[in-house]
């Protein structure tokens, strides 16, 4: 048994190292000078430098990072605000038909490229191109379906008896939802919010098509370091690290909820 456990631990550590290797390589590169990055054979030891991060922060990347933060936070909050009540309503609907839910998920069935030109043209006419509001709206439309689908299953697993008990105790509809149902579905809320956050934060395609310079987000700004006459590898690595950081920190804070949320109902028949 002990030998088995050691083997499993070694395998787990090996697998984790394998998965984390590209990430560690990127972080390492972000602290290297160009000469160190291209040194051949690669140097194991080098003098770390903050120069890439300093240069990044003096460039338009800083504004793009702020854009990403504003757009992602707004769209996640709005998606939850609109999607959670909708999911609750659907979960308590008496109809057994799934047609409505299928229509809701339809926006996520087609590849993003299918929406590119219609959105571009509509946004141009509505003067939403290159605006934060435009990006919030687009992420909202895609995230709402995700919120509804995920949260609906969480609410369906919440016993109705709980909210009925609250009603008997005199709580109104909204009070029962806020004070009884939502706390019970907290892991689901956290997991859904993280997925919305990650989707919006990491999106490249819509940010590429629908922004120019004012509302450009961090993932697109990183690619802008791929200059015609040469790529700025140090800045690309520093930008990549900065883009990963918020998601990583956010996930670490709520990882217990995330695991509970994602596995909830996994063994339910």
């Amino acid at each position, binding site marked *: 048994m002990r030998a088995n456990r050691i083997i499993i631990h070694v395998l787990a550590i090996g697998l984790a190292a394998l998965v984390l290797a590209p990430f560690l390589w990127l972080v390492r590169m972000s602290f290297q000078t*160009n*000469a160190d990055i*291209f*040194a*051949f054979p690669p140097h194991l030891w080098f003098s770390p430098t903050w120069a890439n991060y300093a240069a990044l922060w003096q460039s338009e990347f800083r504004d793009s990072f702020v854009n990403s933060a504003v757009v992602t936070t707004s769209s996640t909050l709005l998606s939850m605000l609109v999607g959670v009540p909708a999911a609750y309503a659907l979960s308590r609907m008496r109809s057994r038909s799934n047609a409505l839910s299928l229509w809701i998920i339809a926006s996520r069935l087609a590849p993003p490229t299918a929406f*590119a*030109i219609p959105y*571009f*043209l509509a946004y*141009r006419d509505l003067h939403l*191109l290159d605006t934060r509001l435009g990006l919030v709206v687009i992420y909202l439309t895609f995230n709402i379906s995700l919120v509804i689908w995920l949260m609906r299953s969480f609410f369906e697993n919440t016993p109705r008896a709980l909210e009925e008990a609250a009603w008997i105790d005199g709580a109104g509809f909204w009070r029962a939802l806020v004070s009884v149902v939502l706390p019970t579905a907290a892991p689901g809320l956290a997991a859904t919010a993280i997925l919305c956050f990650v989707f919006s934060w990491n999106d490249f395609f819509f940010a*590429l*098509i629908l922004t*120019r*310079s004012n509302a450009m987000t961090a993932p*697109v700004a990183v*690619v*802008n*370091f*791929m*200059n*015609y*006459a*040469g*790529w700025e*590898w140090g800045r690309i690595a520093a930008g990549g690290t900065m883009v990963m950081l918020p998601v990583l920190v956010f996930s670490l804070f709520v990882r217990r909820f995330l695991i509970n949320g994602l596995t909830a109902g996994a063994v339910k028949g």
Partner: protein
Amino acid sequence: MEARGRLTRRSLLAGLAAALPAPAVLGQDKAKSKYAGTTIRGAAFSLPFHQYLQNYFPEFEAATGIKVSFDIQAFPIYNQRMDLELSTGGSSYDVIIVTFIYQNRWIGAGWVTPLDEFTADPNVTPPSWDTADFVRGVEASMRDAKGRTYAYGVEAGAMVLGAARGDLIEKAGLSLPTTMDDLIKVCDAVNGKDGVSAWTADKLHHWNWPPYLQAMGGRIFKNPPQNLTPMLNTPQAAKSASWYANLITKYGPPGILSFTDDQAMQSQLSGRANMRTNAITWAAPLAKNPNSTVKNTVRYGMVPAGPAGDFPGVACHGFGIPAGSRQKGAAWEFIKWALSKEMLSRLVKEHGYPSVCRRSVIESEPFKEALTLNGQDVAALYLKVLDQLGDGAYMRYRTVPVFPQVGDKINRAIEAIATKQMSAADALKQAQQQAVEAIRMGGYKVDP
């Protein structure tokens, strides 16, 4: 009050003096009165040209009253965004870079404004602006079948041979190779000497290989842009692809098949690899980049010729005006200013800009000085490549709308040959079939 209506000698002289400033200033004043207060929006990818030019925007704004705002993007992002913008008739931009690889598509589809109406009117463009001064081959790709011009060149990426360690070649008793056979001889003689690989290249084989394909009598398309039948399954193509795959794998540094453009350049700058054929923009840093370790050993030459001649690649990007622009007049004022002889001369003199498209500037002393690299007159080499381009016929393959798709098939075929997964004939046969499908999907006819 009486004097008001009288024509006195003094008032006549004052009037004459006011009417006789230098032509350039006159033009600016005219522009100022007509377009003052206008804001033009431009888009460009991160070219060194633009980085230098934007230092002078305040001068243009002061002289014309036109405000300039530019979005600068990475090359791949720029192309994606601009293709979408132009294809939907957008009016977001007034000045754009007409990218070489999209010239045929954007011009052919009528998404860019013909500039002849501006250049033909001496009130708008003084004859001294001299459209004929732009090198003929550079401008050829920016014209349509009727000869109308849609853009003027900001950068000509003329391909040359750069040998980072020319000293190793001289030490072996040889000189820079001028033919493909010589190139192999030189590679054999210097490969591995001082730990330096004889050759280096990036993985954009669709840019690097065609000069050697054409030098062996092959071609990419039958007769672009009229006939886009691919010509990849010919004996010349197979022979050339086999030769090229051998060049990069036998004489290249480890990992060459996955090299990006930057890695290939770094391999030369650090002295790990010796020779490479690429545009002047990438060759000049060997002598000028502060981090270069080969400043004193670098040598430059023409792309080695084959039995059918030499065909150095040339990629030209130009300033144009989108068809949907609502500020075309002001946009032209900007282009006229940015690509004037005076401005280009300043970019050369003050920044050493190496990829100018105006002959008078290329032949000027400051340009020669800027492109005298490690004692060599690379300016003359640059002009020779541009002149060799002639009417641009042999580079037309690069400007057809379906080239990106076909280029992708070429890249995969060369990789398959270099990694010995397939023979050259089989890989190119497959590439040919895939290219035909891609071209047909693009809505073009190919010969049966």
